[in-house]
Each structure stands twice: as structure tokens, then as C-alpha cells.
């Protein structure tokens, strides 16, 4: 299984480079500061092309409009608009604590927004009845950061769980399907292990097999690369891309691992301070003139986001 090389400073996927070349390399020319707030919409022409290809099946799979969500006094999202095209990998990146995981929970209906709408496959998730929401979730998969495997069930039983819950397939069919899904993630031989016997990377691969057990239309990945060794990381990167392409899924990858995520993403949203700071393909984001975007993408310790937490003057603190 080949591994894509992470590009930590100039993240770009071949596909995106090809797209930029076809665009004449001027994708970033259309860069502008968004009319509302500080959102930077870059590569308008290239984005439009990406959207067209991404919405070949019609409307975007996920459409977010005017999303506002707050926890107590802290505003997490304030007027966020997003479109997740069908059949592509869309990355949502941003610093820790900006609400990336919260966004996935809003998309999957686990949280309700204070204002705005989240449509998945044309249906407003938060207007669905309990039954309809659960029916929709059978068409969504989610890979949690921890894997979220049921610790009292074996690997096989974990992957079989959604099949047993939502289908009336015979035991032999369940067995075949589970082994197929495990084979796809390279863990057919680990079927009898318990979750406590798996490494972090293996647990996520099992969780991935479980997430695709019902052949969903989309998968949401919550920080899939966090805490992984380079081999596990490479395996996960390749699996996400292969599963997306082979099963014609739509993937949403939430991460702050810039290099790995940008290497597989067809489209990237950068969020911070409750807003979309920038969006576009990897090289469009890379070529963006925003200092904040550059600091984030290159992992620079100082810039618009200061290294020092606000503090009294140095002299006053040390010299009385």
C-alpha cells in the first residue's frame, strides 16, 4: 500500500496541481476579501470549477447556511456558510478549539444550531423527526478521534454491529460483509481481537470498517491523524482516499494536520474565530496572501496569532 508523502509547507495534491495547470495557474488571481467579515474567498474560478465537478450529481451533499452556534457566552460559529461537494474529500482545518468537531456534530444532528440551517442531501437535518434523523444517520458514517469502538465487543462484532442493528441479513452474509470490510482496511486477520488489544491506528481502521459497513453516502473523519505514527498515518491517508474514490463516497476530514490533510483534500475550508477564514484547493490556500492563512499552513510560531499569551509588560513583571 503506497503512501503519499506529506507536504508540510506546500501542501498540494497532484490532482489539484493538475487542476491548477488546466486553469492556467491563475486560480489565485480571483482571490479577494469576502464582503462579509474577514472571510477570504480565494481561487474563485478554480473553486467554481471544483464545485461544478463536485456537484456533478446536482446540489452539494451538505449545504450550511448562516450557521450560528454558541456554548454559553462563547460563540463557536457566527454566520458560517459552507458547501460540501459530492464525491470529493473536503477538509475542514483550523486551530485547536475552533469547533471543528462541533461542526461535524452539527452536520450529523447531534447538536442543534442557534440559527442557520444544515442540509444533508437536500434535507434540513435539524427539522427531521427523531426517526428520520436516525434513518439519515444510517447513510452517514463517522470516524471518531478515539475510534469509539465498543470495548466489550470483538473487532468482528464491532464491524457487524450496524449490520445486525439495521439489517436482517443472514449470519453467513453478515460474516462475508464484515470480512470484506475488514479486508479493505487490512485487518481481516485481527477479527478476533478485542479493542484493548489494538494499537491506536488499528482501532481507527476497525472504526473505519464499521463506518462503511452500511455503505454510507458520506463519511466524516474527526481528527483521523492525531497521535499516529508515520506508518499508521500513511495507511490512514491512503485508506481515506481509496475508500472515497472506490466507494464514491463524500468525505469530510476535520483535522489540523496540515500536510497530511492537504495532501488528500480536493477542497479545504479554514475556520477560526467562528468564521470561514479561507476556502479553496490546497494550492490556492497555499498561495493565499492572508498572513493568518500563511501562519497556519506553514505552522509558524508567531504572526497574527501571537506566540505570547497577553501579559503585562516584561519590565513591569521582572523589575517591579
Amino acid at each position, binding site marked *: 500500500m503506497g503512501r503519499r508523502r506529506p507536504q508540510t509547507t506546500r501542501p498540494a495534491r497532484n490532482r489539484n496541481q493538475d487542476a491548477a495547470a488546466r486553469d492556467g495557474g491563475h486560480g489565485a488571481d480571483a482571490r479577494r476579501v469576502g464582503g462579509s467579515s474577514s472571510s477570504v474567498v480565494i481561487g474563485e474560478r478554480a473553486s467554481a470549477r471544483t464545485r461544478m465537478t463536485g456537484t456533478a450529481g446536482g446540489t452539494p451533499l451538505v449545504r450550511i447556511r448562516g450557521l450560528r452556534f454558541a456554548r454559553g457566552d462563547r460563540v463557536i460559529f457566527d454566520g458560517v456558510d459552507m458547501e460540501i461537494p459530492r464525491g470529493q474529500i473536503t477538509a475542514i482545518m483550523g486551530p485547536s478549539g475552533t469547533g471543528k468537531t462541533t461542526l461535524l456534530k452539527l452536520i450529523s444532528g*447531534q447538536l442543534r444550531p442557534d440559527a442557520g440551517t444544515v442540509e444533508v442531501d437536500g434535507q434540513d437535518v435539524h427539522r427531521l423527526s427523531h426517526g428520520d434523523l436516525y434513518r439519515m444517520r444510517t447513510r452517514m458514517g463517522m470516524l471518531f478521534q*478515539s475510534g469509539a469502538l465498543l*470495548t466489550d465487543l470483538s473487532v468482528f462484532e464491532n464491524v457487524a454491529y*450496524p449490520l445486525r*442493528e439495521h439489517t436482517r441479513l443472514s449470519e453467513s452474509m453478515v460474516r462475508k460483509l464484515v470480512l470484506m470490510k475488514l479486508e479493505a482496511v487490512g485487518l481481516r486477520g485481527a477479527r478476533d481481537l478485542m479493542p484493548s488489544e489494538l494499537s491506536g491506528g488499528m482501532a481507527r481502521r476497525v472504526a473505519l470498517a464499521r463506518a462503511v459497513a452500511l455503505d454510507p453516502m458520506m463519511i466524516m473523519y474527526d481528527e483521523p491523524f492525531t497521535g499516529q505514527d508515520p506508518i499508521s498515518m500513511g495507511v490512514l491517508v491512503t485508506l481515506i482516499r481509496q475508500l472515497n474514490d472506490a466507494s464514491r463516497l463524500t468525505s469530510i476530514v476535520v483535522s489540523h494536520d496540515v500536510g497530511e490533510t492537504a495532501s488528500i483534500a480536493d477542497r479545504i475550508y479554514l475556520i477560526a474565530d467562528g468564521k470561514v477564514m479561507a476556502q479553496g484547493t490546497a494550492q490556492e490556500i497555499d498561495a493565499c496572501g492572508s498572513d493568518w492563512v500563511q501562519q497556519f499552513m506553514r505552522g509558524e510560531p508567531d504572526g497574527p496569532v501571537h506566540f505570547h499569551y497577553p501579559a503585562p509588560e516584561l519590565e513591569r513583571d521582572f523589575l517591579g
Partner: protein
Amino acid sequence: MLELLRQLGRSGLQSLANLGRGHILLAAILLGLPSLVARPQLLLAQIFNVGVLSVLIIAVSGLFVGMVLGLQGYYVLSQFGAAQSLGVMVAASLVRELGPVVTALLVAGRAGSALTAEVGLMKATEQLSGLEMMAVDPVKRILTPRFFGGLVSMPLLAAMFSAVGVLGGWFVGVGLLGVDEGAYWGQLQAKIDFEEDVVNGVIKSVVFGFVVAWIALFQGYEATPTSDGVSRATTRTVVHSALAVLGLDFVLTALMFGD
């Protein structure tokens, strides 16, 4: 002064909100009963976890409590020449009070805390969210079987506690202190009323099972998903359960045995 009032008001409102959330969760748990009937193996697994795994501590505790009752009862009753009534005293104490109450306290400490920790850790490790994302209702799948497992196990464990306790009292009274065996069992049989003593004791233990399981599951489900949060929730389960059991015991005793 104003700050004190503000804090009082805040904690009062918080308690009311918790009570409301607890009742909503209880309603959701009870509404899950039909799905539990369709999967009885889930209930059996929880009766094993809550009930069978608590048998040892219940049996040993029951034995010692019965032995102490036999010893203390003999010394008091023999002063009035009524040592032959030891069996009634031991059995009435156990069946009416100590069986249900001590069993509930032990179950809260052993199984209630385990339920809270289990559910709290399932929340912390995103297993509950994972179930939701698999379109499986975690309340029906995780909480309802545990609630009814606790509800069914408690009266069975209380009955076991009382039975072993009566044997403990017999061992001390008849075996060691020389109380007549016929008098021990005969008076016990004649004076212990099925409805007034046994049924009331069973009702008490069912109520305690209901409350302990509810508190344990609510605390686990509402736990802050961190190690500190789960630890605090586990402590709250034991404290709240103990207070609820002792308070309810007074109320139930007054209702059942008051004239």
C-alpha cells in the same frame, strides 16, 4: 449578602435543572422497555453484571449482619427471659429493614458506582456518540437494560441477604448460645407475616433498586467526559444513593408500618 443570595439562587436553579434532566432521562429509559423486551439477552447480561456479581458481597455481609443481630438480640432478650424469640427478632429486623436497606447501600457502592463509571467512560471514549452515529439510541441500548437489570436484581439480592442473615442469626443463637432450635424457627414462622413483613420488604427493595439504578445511570450519562468528571460522578452516585435510600426508607416505613 447579595452574593450569597445569588449563589443560593444559582445552586437552586441548577438543582431544579438537574432534577428536570433526570426525569426526562428516566422517561426515555422507561420508554425503551419495548425494545428491551425484543432483546431479553441484554437484560440477562445486566442482571448478571448487577446481580450475580454482587452475590458474594451480599451473602457475606448478610451472614455477618445476621450473626451480629443474633448476638446482640440474645443479650437483650435474655435479660427479659425472651431469648426464645430470637428468631423473630432477627428475621423481622432483616426482612423489614436491614435486608432492603443494607443491600441497597451495598449495591449502590458495588454495582451503582460501576454503572456510573461504565456509562461515564463510554461517554468519555465517544462510544455513546458512536452509537448515535450508527443510528442506535444509546438510552435504549445502554441505559434501559442496565436500569431494569438493577431493578430486577435488587429484590433478589435483598431476599438473599435476609435469608443468609437468618442463617447467621441461627448459627450464633442456636449453635453457639444455646437457644432452642424449635423455638427459633417456630416463632419465626408464626410471627413473620407474609404481607406485612415480606411483601413490604420486597416493595422497599424494588423502590431502592429503582432509585439507585436511576441515580447511577443519570450520573454516568451526565458526567463530564474526563477522568476527573467520571470520578466525581461515581462519588456522587454513592453519596446520593445512600442518602436517597435512607430518606426513602424512613418515608416508606412510616407509610407501611405507621398506624
